[in-house]
């Protein structure tokens, strides 16, 4: 019999609204995943973590450790709004929780508008100030801009090359709405890289977010994105189940709160100091997940803004320098 009943503070839009059953899939210090048939993942999060489309945030104390409370394989079921986990000391009351949802499809980010373009530059600048060892943005900058590359482990070097060759192709194919080519690039990135959610996946989640919030005005892009989302869900079989949950949500236009809030702030473009803080929050997620996701999102935002694709990466990677020097003048 559970001793503690946590209240759910918020539930993501992808959490089933009614009864569900499953098992504990994986447990970490500050998260626990539940596996629901037929192939859905739910994530329990402590109060201090941001929302997820498939997440349930609990009013835990800040020192609550899931790893001490749960183990893989325990049965879990939600009945009448109460989530119980077999043998756990706690249950979760989902009834008072608010629904968390940011609909990227409703945003209308247009970088041809000066204020939104400025907000993008600010976020890009924050990304490049952030140091993310092993992340794609760090690797790409090193690859394209460094005259002499520092020695790095063979694996990192190989990863870097893969990303550096694939991402420009991805941007070009997306710009031209070539679905087959885009899928080919995505296949090369899925499950690629370090981390529980590999860098390639984090990048793609952000990339889809960037595309969704700039596609609204154009029906052919919306149509393309819908088809791409469907393909992405299929291709996501090539990564692990946890990462797949994020990819499948992103395929439908749902991403985690840090990335979604960044998209909102870019769209609003009215408070640059707040935008910087939001970008930094998004960048701090995980080890390199945050920076890989922000990189993907900011590039995704740019794809349909009429920039010459072949200039894209090298120009963009120099942008913070240009921007900073411009602002100093």
């Amino acid at each position: 019999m559970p001793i503690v009943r946590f209240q759910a503070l918020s539930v993501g839009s992808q959490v089933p609204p009614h009864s569900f059953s499953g098992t504990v899939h994986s447990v970490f210090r500050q998260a626990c995943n539940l596996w629901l048939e037929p192939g859905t993942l739910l994530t329990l999060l402590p109060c201090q973590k941001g929302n997820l489309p498939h997440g349930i945030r609990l009013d835990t104390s800040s020192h609550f450790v899931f790893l001490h409370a749960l183990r893989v394989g325990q049965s879990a079921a939600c009945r009448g709004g109460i989530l119980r986990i077999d043998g756990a000391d706690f249950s979760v009351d989902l009834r008072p929780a608010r629904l968390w949802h940011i609909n990227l499809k409703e945003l209308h980010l247009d970088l041809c508008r000066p204020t939104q373009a400025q907000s993008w530059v600010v976020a890009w600048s924050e990304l490049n100030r952030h140091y993310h060892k092993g992340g794609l943005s760090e690797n790409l900058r090193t690859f394209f801009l460094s005259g002499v590359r520092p020695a790095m482990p063979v694996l990192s070097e190989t990863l870097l090359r893969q990303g550096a060759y694939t991402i420009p192709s991805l941007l070009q194919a997306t710009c031209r709405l070539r679905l087959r080519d885009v899928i080919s690039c995505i296949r090369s990135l899925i499950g690629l890289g370090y981390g529980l959610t590999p860098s390639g996946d984090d990048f793609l989640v952000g990339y889809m977010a960037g595309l969704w919030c700039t596609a609204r005005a154009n029906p052919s892009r919306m149509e393309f994105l819908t088809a791409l989302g469907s393909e992405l869900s299929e291709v996501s079989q090539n990564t692990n189940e946890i990462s797949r949950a994020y990819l499948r949500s992103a395929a439908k236009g749902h991403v985690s709160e840090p990335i979604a809030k960044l998209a909102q702030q870019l769209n609003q473009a009215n408070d640059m100091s707040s935008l910087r803080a939001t970008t930094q929050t998004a960048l701090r997620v995980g080890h390199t997940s945050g920076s890989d996701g922000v990189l993907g999102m900011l590039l995704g935002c740019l794809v349909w803004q009429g920039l010459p694709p072949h200039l894209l990466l090298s120009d963009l990677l120099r942008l913070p320098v240009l921007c900073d020097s411009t602002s100093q003048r």
Partner: protein
Amino acid sequence: MARATKIIRNFYRDSVSLMQLSSTIAKLPGVEQASAIMASPNNVTLLVEAGLLAEPVEASANDLLIALQGEADALESALATAESSLKQPAPSSTGSEQSRGMSPRSIEMGLGNLVGANLALISTPGEYAAAEAFKALTLGLNVMLFSDNVEIKDEIALKRFAQERDLIVMGPDCGTAIINGIPLAFANVVRRGAIGVVGASGTGLQQVTCLIDRWGGGISQAIGTGGHDLHRDVGGLSMLQGLKALAADPSTSVIVLISKPPSPEVSATVLEAATGAGKAVVVNFLGADPDQLRRENIYPAATLEDAAAVAVALANGITPEARRASVTSPSTPSLAPQQRYVRGLYSGGTFCYEASLLLKKQLGQINSNTPVEPGDRLADVWTSQKHTVIDLGDDLFTRGRPHPMIDHRLRNERLIKEASDPEVAVILLDIVLGYGSHPDPAAEMVPVIQKARDLATKAGRHLVTIGFVCGTAADPQNLSRQETALREVGVILAESNAQAVRMAASVVLETDVTGGRL
């Protein structure tokens, strides 16, 4: 340079831990390169390209792959170090482990011990039952309400409350269900299959499910609704919910509905829902005119036996032909001229009602405590009149004593009484097996049947005893042993209630013919 790999299946660690692990191992003496990485196809290719793997390995994207390169002597201990650092301390076991030993004292406590449960079976005195059922529904559980004496206003409120939450209330007074292959309360062990049954009658459900099993079919779900569900005021809410569930259930291809005839409004609603179910629906509304029930996908059945037969045929992809009631006349010694009547002593209410219906067509008025027509009501339920069938499970008989499926004393007493009546030709009996029923009904009945026959013999009569066993080979009572014991004492066993009833009628009619009284 040597290589070593280790695959840990379905293993998840957060990114920081994986990076720390890679870094730690890479610093061990003799290790040149190390990677702890999720084994997605792209990452495996990456490791091959980077030289950490000689060739792709058999691993899934959910596996953790540790790949090392370095001096051969150092790699084994490096892998061991990696594995030991991945070991996770067991979660603390505190209150919940202790609480597992406690008997739950509420539905919520029960749910705490069995978190995946989605159904509560409630059997409390009727006055408390509705409150407990509301608690269960609020907790998100479907309800099987075994309790009777629940007020109809409470039944309506419960069923509406459930419907709003897409849950079902089976009952009140629901004695039979088979959910996901599990018999609940009075139910039989049947083979699983493609036929789903919703019934407002407990023994009706048992008869249909047992016959389906006997004839090679199987049951997906058998959902009881309680006897009042198709009352006009209740509106068939549970039958509609059950029908909806079976229509959506991919493992159900044929649906069977069983009830006494509902009110015309409820009947219309249920038939409309059945028409929209998208599956073949066999309807047995006992006593209803089959032509009134017929629709495009609806197959009316006159008896419980017919319902089972039609359902099995449909499940096997065979278009059911109109079944003709077959009558096998048992060969019995000549009866005395005054032996003219059938006495049915039933433990199952629906069997009794079906017997009344079938006998009435052949023998005229059938007296009963649960009559088909008001004029056929027995003036004194303790004393039979002419053709009589008695539902011994009726409230009148069960106040303060167990149901006759569990406790055979009342029926045994009545059996002796009927055997003493010189006008009785046939005793008609149901023997119900399965969970909930007496563990060995034949052992209870055989001595009494023998005594009844002896009484008749001493009086110069032969008493015909006809019965049927409602059960399956997998029931705990051992069907074959029960049947053998009953046959040895002279009971003529039919396959179903309908067949037993027809046999009984034929014996009496035969007697009338031979006695020249027609």
